[in-house]
């Protein structure tokens, strides 16, 4: 194997370091107009009418309202409850009401200001605990928790909160749409993760058959889940404007608009009650998860699903009850962000484990090691773990690297700057939850070109994570050819089959698996003497009339069974495992938290491109640390308070700690070359380990993140009232 497991330069690097890569805002589109959106300035209400300032000449622009939508006025996704443009009900601040296209920015801004929606305000709901509208409920039951409480050595309870978080891809969202061409085909190019999601939305909104809705992903300047569902909205808006204007329209968000209206991580509250034996064995776990879904369903049911399925952590427990609900509020809809519900529930269960350790006087490493899932164990849904189970391996790796198993936990520290450490153990299901992959039936094609190179066609997008290099390495080694002999099609619904969305840590395992399968079939079909270069044999094969095209479709590995109705069975084909150790210094004057050291061990099955895998782990880990203490996302009357990059902060190079990344490889028999997933997992463990480290340093419970200095001070003053001013 020449490319899998090797360090190779990513194919997109050269264009990117020279500024030659074309992102959506870089597209040169002659005659394009600029699009903009008129938005609601209240969180809930009824749209009475849209007044037009008579002083503005509306013949200079194009205006689109709900009445102008040729298809259905919905953002087609899971539940079609979200309108593309408000017609009557306003459910969140910033909800789109009308669209404008204009020849230049000044005219656009003037037109937007001249359209004045009249809205009768209604009473909004911002409190998820008080919300009576539930987007989705999920229950998981195993054994009988209620039979355990009375006989347990200890019963430990805790309630944990996680805040929202902004993806903060550095490239704001945007799409360019062209009006229907002479064949009636509408083309959209944009910064997006999931071309076929956008195509589905366009088909519904513009009443188009699939062949007339073509979606192409540009080079994407970061996504992290933020460009999973929302680009459907922008694409439909741009396409509606282009149709009305009869010319291409660029709908590019600036940072302010992007922050104000695009979906962010779901705020979450998790309650735990755990029964433990004297030796630390988990006897029963009772867990209640509640998430704020915001004003429309969007992806919330699936976020909740991943959240509850990860709620027990990678721990063995015979009796489990998980109840989950994601509810409606009048917040801007929350959505996908790396981890997709798991970082929230992972935070809670890891803090609960630390709480149990403290109660029992056990070392947090020892408690985790004692309960960590091992081959032969079953999860809360009854899934038997028999392949690629690495919970102990990752924990052992970070313990060996940091020596944290010998560090005393929660001893009294003194002085202004106090140090502490924290550990977390986590897991992450690779691929879609439950029967998602089976329903999706992803497809990938591989075809021999006339010159013997092979073109691999998949809709997986390169959003920075390294899709191109990874798929190319898998294809090359599956074919037995050079990486340069593999060409990848653009993620274009007109050219690549639907290999599913670029989400859920699925691109390597699922799409990569299909690429491997297609390429192996092609290799067998081409045949010949493998001592000769593949390219020569392949060129000869097609020259001689051989059918050089293979298309494959996903089928779940044998024995994988999921019962959606009862949440029983194999929730994921396999899990990846991770462990983090964080060391911090907390200044008890300012409660500033400095992360001194960060060590993580991540099991990816097999690192197809180790350099890229490290990049994913380091980047995801820093996002997780940011989630833990730095990144604050709050609302006031339904409006985002941190609505600029100056206030919606993410870590700088100075805030980022040096990172030690340990790759653990426990191959998964059904993954390509043994690979599982990596994208999301690093987002899960950083925040709880960081919170634990702060707790160890200054002795106050950190049950909520982000653990800002303001929050830490408030908790500190509870136990140090003499310091209050």
């Amino acid at each position, binding site marked *: 194997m020449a490319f899998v497991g090797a360090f190779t330069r990513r194919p997109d690097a050269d264009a990117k370091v020279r500024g030659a890569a074309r992102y959506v805002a870089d597209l040169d589109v002659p005659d394009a107009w600029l699009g903009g959106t008129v938005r609601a300035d209240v969180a809930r209400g009824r749209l009475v009418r849209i007044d037009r300032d008579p002083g503005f000449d509306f013949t200079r622009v194009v205006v689109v309202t709900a009445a102008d939508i040729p298809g259905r006025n919905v953002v087609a996704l899971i539940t079609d409850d979200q309108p593309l443009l408000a017609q009557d009900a306003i459910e969140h601040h910033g909800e789109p009401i009308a669209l404008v296209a204009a020849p230049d*920015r*000044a005219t656009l*801004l*003037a037109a937007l*200001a001249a359209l004045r929606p009249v809205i009768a305000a209604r009473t909004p709901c911002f409190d998820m605990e008080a919300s009576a509208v539930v987007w989705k409920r999920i229950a998981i039951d195993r054994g009988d928790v209620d039979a355990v409480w009375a006989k347990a050595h200890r019963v430990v309870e805790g309630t944990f909160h996680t805040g929202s978080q902004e993806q903060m891809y550095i490239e704001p969202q945007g799409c360019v749409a062209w009006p229907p061409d002479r064949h009636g085909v509408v083309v959209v190019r944009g910064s997006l993760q999931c071309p076929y999601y956008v195509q589905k939305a366009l088909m519904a909104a513009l009443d188009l058959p699939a062949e007339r809705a073509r979606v192409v992903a540009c080079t994407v300047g970061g996504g992290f889940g933020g460009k999973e569902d929302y680009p459907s909205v922008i694409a439909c808006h741009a396409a509606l404007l282009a149709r009305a204007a009869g010319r291409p329209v660029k709908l590019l968000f600036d940072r*302010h608009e992007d922050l104000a209206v695009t979906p962010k991580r779901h705020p979450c509250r998790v309650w735990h009650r755990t029964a433990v034996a004297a030796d630390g064995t988990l006897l029963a776990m009772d867990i209640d998860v509640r998430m704020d879904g915001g004003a429309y369903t969007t992806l919330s049911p699936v976020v909740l699903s991943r959240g509850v399925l990860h709620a027990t952590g990678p721990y063995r427990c015979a009796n489990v009850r998980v109840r989950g609900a994601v509810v409606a509020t009048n917040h801007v809809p929350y959505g996908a962000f790396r981890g997709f519900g798991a970082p929230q529930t992972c935070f809670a269960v890891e803090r609960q484990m630390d709480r149990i350790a403290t109660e029992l006087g056990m070392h947090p490493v020892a408690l985790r090691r004692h309960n960590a899932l091992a081959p032969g164990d079953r999860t809360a849904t009854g899934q038997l773990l028999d392949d690629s189970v690495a919970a102990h391996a990752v924990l052992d790796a970070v313990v060996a690297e940091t020596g944290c198993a010998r560090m005393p936990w929660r001893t009294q520290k*003194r002085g*202004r700057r106090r140090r502490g450490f924290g550990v977390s153990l986590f897991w992450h299901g690779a691929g879609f939850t439950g029967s998602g992959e089976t329903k999706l039936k992803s497809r990938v094609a591989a075809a021999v070109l006339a010159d013997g190179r092979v073109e691999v066609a998949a809709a997986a997008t390169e959003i920075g994570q390294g899709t191109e290099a990874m798929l190319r390495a898998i294809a090359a080694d599956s074919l037995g050819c050079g990486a340069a002999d593999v060409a990848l099609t653009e993620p274009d619904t007109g050219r690549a089959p639907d290999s599913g969305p670029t989400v859920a840590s699925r691109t390597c395992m699922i799409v990569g698996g299909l690429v491997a399968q297609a390429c192996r079939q092609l290799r067998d079909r081409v045949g010949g003497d493998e001592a000769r270069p593949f390219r020569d044999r392949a060129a000869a094969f097609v020259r001689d009339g051989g059918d050089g095209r293979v298309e494959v479709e996903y089928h779940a590995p044998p024995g994988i069974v999921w019962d959606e109705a009862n949440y029983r069975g194999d929730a994921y084909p396999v899990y990846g495992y991770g462990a983090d150790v964080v060391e911090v210094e907390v200044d008890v*004057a*300012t*409660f*500033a938290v*400095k992360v001194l050291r960060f060590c993580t061990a991540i099991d990816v099955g097999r690192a197809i491109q180790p350099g890229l895998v490290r990049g994913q782990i380091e980047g995801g880990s820093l996002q997780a640390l940011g989630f833990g203490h*730095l990144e604050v996302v709050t609302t006031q009357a339904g409006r985002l*308070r*941190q609505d600029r990059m*100056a*206030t919606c*902060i993410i*870590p*700088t*190079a*100075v*805030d980022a700690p040096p990172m030690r990344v340990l790759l653990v490889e426990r191959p998964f028999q059904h993954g390509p070359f043994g690979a599982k997933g990596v994208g999301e997992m690093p987002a899960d463990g950083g925040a709880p380990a960081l919170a634990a480290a702060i707790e160890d340093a200054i002795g106050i419970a950190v049950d909520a993140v982000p653990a800002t*200095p*303001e929050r830490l*001070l*408030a908790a500190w*003053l509870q136990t140090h009232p003499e*310091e209050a*001013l």
Partner: protein
Amino acid sequence: MNAAPTAVYSPRSLATALAVLADRAPVTVLAGGTDLMVELRTGRTQVASVLDLWGVEELRFVRAEAGGVRIGALTTITELRRQPSLGAWPLLAACAADFAAEQIRNRATVGGSLGTASPAADLGPVLWALDAVVRLRSRDGVRDLPIPAFLLGYRRTARRADELIESVWLPGRLPTERGAFVKVGTRDAQSIAKVVVALVASRDAGSGQVTAVRAAAGSVAERTVELASLQELVGRRPDAAALLAVSRVAASRDCAPIDDVRSSAVYRRHALQRVVCDMLTSTLEVPLEDG
């Protein structure tokens, strides 16, 4: 919203710049653009016409004057950090090192920072603690205003519409003085202050008595404020308990912090008190009490 200004003047001399101010009012003054360009883009600020000072080389200087130093208004933050002739005022370099990021430091100017008069400005407390005097120039002459008389309120200064901030003069420092600058930001770099304090103090080597203390803070009121309560240390030989007490008084009386998107009033008071106590302890070399 977002209308382009009707006129932009880019003079090459101070005299022309002053003439524009006198004849074309109202004119918005532009230096390095790190504030105004954002304000214009977002539409938060509307301007009729703009006086672009960037080409007025006469405002770009640092020179010794009257036992101190005079710093031209167009001096950038990077220059504050790099100018060897400012070595006697290390607080300037300390402040500059923590000021925004390199790209901003290369553009933001002393005059611009003063003129914007943001309550969260890092430079305000430093100039206040260093007894800086702002020189305003108009066609009619100059006015010299000490910082307390110049910074009037939230983004409000004593500059008249026909005046420019020409320079800032800093008096020379005494060898007995020690200074400290502390910024508590929203993150470890490129941050906006939640609390920022500059302090200069000295004590008599023989008697150990505090001879002078001057401190000012930012982001804890609608403008930069002096921590006037610290004056009660003058003439005393404070111990650690006294510093704790006086810092608590300062944090209670000398500021009026608010809850905003960056922090809370409670936090700001607390951090201010702890930071000031620590700064006094180090600059006055007071032994720490155990605990």
